[in-house]
């Protein structure tokens, strides 16, 4: 099962499902299927989506579930390398 952040990136870019669907040349229903994780896209479609969002494909798709957004925001930033004992 592949996890994705399509909905997060789509809303962040201010795109509707229909607009995103037009940008990657698919049916708007397919965006809904992708966002719910009901359909795993082809490599080509995954790359197209990443290109539309302007990020790497790994930022949009992952083999492991993405951590919740709140956990990512609240996570302490990693200390600089020199400070570690």
């Amino acid at each position, binding site marked *: 099962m592949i996890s994705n952040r399509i909905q997060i990136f789509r809303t962040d870019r201010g795109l509707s499902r229909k607009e995103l669907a037009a940008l990657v040349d698919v049916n708007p229903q397919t965006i809904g*299927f992708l966002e719910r994780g009901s359909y795993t896209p082809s490599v080509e479609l995954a790359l197209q989506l990443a290109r539309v969002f302007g990020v790497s494909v790994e930022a949009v798709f992952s083999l492991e579930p993405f951590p919740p957004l709140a956990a990512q925001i609240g996570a302490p930033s990693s200390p600089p390398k020199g400070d570690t004992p």
Partner: protein
Amino acid sequence: MSAPATTPGKTPSKAYLNFSRNTAHALSVGALGSLSLWFALKFLLTEEPGPQQAGLQLAVGVLALAGMVASVLLFLSTYSFRANAPDAQIDEREVTERNRAYFRAYQTLVFVLLLSYIVAEFGEKAFGWVPTRGVIANFLTLLIFAALTLPAAILAWWDAGDEG
């Protein structure tokens, strides 16, 4: 990749009837249900038309007409377009769904054929019943309409609606 001939997911609304999901469900049940009932009731009809047979004859005729009209309407719907569209006119998810729908329809028809073969063989061995030419013709009619409408009907039942 070359650009598709038309935008994926766009159905030519002028050529195909854009029924709602519920209407397509009703049409698929109407088409396959009416024709199956028509086929079953045909067995009750005797060769000599009597007063008792008149009502049954009418019911059989109405069922055949209703089933065929519903089949044709479903065949002209956007679900049928999706079921029969070339790869370039639908997106990759729709291609996958179309292929799954055809495979499911194929499995169903093979099951029905196998079952009817067993019934015919058993009927002959156990009761000496051999299907007449008329029964075989009716059965083929049922199968043809089922084969034409099943992929579109399956797609209609799988449709998740506008929200996807």
